[in-house]
């Protein structure tokens, strides 16, 4: 159950999609977010779905994993579908007393749900095929223009990198503490909401204590290595734009533009 947390779901690999520069994938993801809401029509959604499916197949990541990435947005999708179905006025399909379900409502709900799912699938593919470190570096690159406005992009990137680095560590720790307390007869699965929340205290206290200790150790370790500030640091693996990256980025942007122009 605890393993299902979607963070850090990167699956290492050497597929073409893995090798595309993280910055390209990030830009494509952002472009997807835009085009998904520009395109309006099932043909356009279909084209985007085919594009994403091709990318997923190319990535070698099992489709079940991509689908798992959709789980967190399912609540949002369900909620928007319900609201659209119930509160869109129009030609009535079904009328149950005061509740009226219109054809327009069903149509709008379907469109929005499709858009959200396409977006989530794209985001899921990006995080599945890009290492968190590469992703943060890409984010820093993207935020770099903001430095002129006083945005501490390198520091933000460093913090994100470190935070991501410790997600699996803390998850493992969480798992261990949960097991240790279960070994002492703790029960996290039964009882009412209040009982369950209270049952978490023996887990959260040790987890917090250890997180603070780790943070402290990390700070000491960084100081011992004379760490000063994040700006102007070099990287072991510095990403370089290759022809492949230009092709992917250019091709995708052309494709998206055509879609937006044709089906917008």
């Amino acid at each position: 159950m605890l393993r299902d947390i979607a963070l850090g779901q990167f699956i290492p690999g050497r597929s073409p999609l893995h090798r595309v520069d993280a910055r390209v994938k990030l830009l494509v993801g952002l472009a997807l977010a835009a085009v998904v809401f520009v395109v309006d029509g099932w043909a356009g959604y279909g084209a985007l779905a085919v594009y994403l499916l091709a990318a997923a197949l190319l990535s070698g990541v099992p489709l079940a994993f991509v689908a798992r990435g959709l789980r967190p947005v399912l609540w949002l999708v369900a909620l928007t579908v319900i609201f659209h179905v119930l509160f869109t006025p129009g030609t009535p399909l079904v009328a149950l007393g005061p509740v009226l379900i219109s054809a327009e409502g069903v149509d709008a709900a379907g469109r929005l749900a499709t858009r959200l799912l396409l977006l989530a699938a794209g985001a899921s593919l990006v995080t599945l095929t890009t290492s968190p470190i590469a992703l943060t570096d890409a984010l820093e690159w993207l935020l770099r223009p903001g430095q002129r406005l006083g945005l501490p992009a390198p520091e933000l990137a460093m913090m994100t990198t470190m935070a991501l680095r410790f997600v699996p560590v803390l998850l493992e720790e969480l798992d261990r503490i949960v097991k240790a307390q279960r070994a002492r007869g703790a029960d996290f699965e039964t009882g009412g909401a209040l009982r369950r929340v209270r049952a978490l205290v023996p887990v959260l206290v040790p987890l917090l204590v250890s997180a603070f200790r780790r943070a402290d150790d990390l700070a000491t370790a960084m100081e011992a290595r004379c760490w000063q500030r994040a700006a102007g640091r070099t990287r072991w693996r510095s990403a370089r734009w290759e022809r492949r990256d230009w092709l992917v980025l250019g091709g995708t942007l052309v494709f998206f533009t055509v879609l937006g122009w044709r089906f917008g």
Partner: protein
Amino acid sequence: MPIVVKDLHYTYNAGTPLATPALRGVSLTVADGEFVALVGPVGAGKSTLLQHLNGLIVPPAGAVWVDGQDLGGRGVDWRAVRRRVGLVFQYPEQQLFADTVYDDVAFGPRNLGLDETAVARRVREAMAAMGLDYDSLKGRSPFTLSGGEQRRVALAGVLALGPRYLLLDEPTAGLDPVGRRELFELLVRLHREQGVAVVLVTHDLEAVARLAEKVVVLAGGRVALAGPPEEVLGASRRADLKALALDAPAAAQLVDHLRRRGWDLPGNLVRDEEVAAAIARAAAQRLARASRPQAPGALAGRAEAQGRSDASGRRERGQPC
């Protein structure tokens, strides 16, 4: 009734590209009241195996029976299993959470649904068994104690469940030599006086030789060697141990060394006292064969001194003396 493990397999992240097999067909038995040492290189599957023994991991393939109950079956009373089989994780002090030592040790018994008088008795007994002074420590915050004390409080928290089997994952890691010795002594007392079966995961083969009735060597998710310490750690197995990156106990290495130099010593000696006695005996014989007769007391003393100088005189590379 024993804990019986049969052909246990376990893979982490099974069914994903990150799958890593940890156990590949482990079978073993822990008899009631037995002291078992579980040794093996890092990544051998020791900790994974321990977690199967009290049902924290339910076996997907293979079976675990605790006192005749199949942990893979339906309708298992987990609370009863965890009361019978106590598990102490590595660095158990990291699981302390309560405001006071008393409340932390009482966590287990309270989870068992005992009333407060019974809980109080359990806490008192468990703290005593771990050599902790009840009156001065019960009201203190566990976070203000020393590392060694914290560890013993955490152990008391598991003991307070009243387990018949106690599983410990490297309980002495990070302790100083005194703390280590004290902890082992407490375990031995628990084992002898209360008949608690102990499964001890450790890299300390001296302690294994001294304490264990049975040694199980795990490697690559399989049982590589199993048997009484003199057999598993004895001279005939030394090459196997070395292949698994395990060093024989220092006393056994001394025996090896002397045997290579022509001393007549049995190869299956692994405990300090036995080795000392055998060396003293062999030395006395050697001296008796030599021309100058001396008083027996002085002989033994000289023999031991000679044994020591032999050992430190020519060190084998890669073998700590």
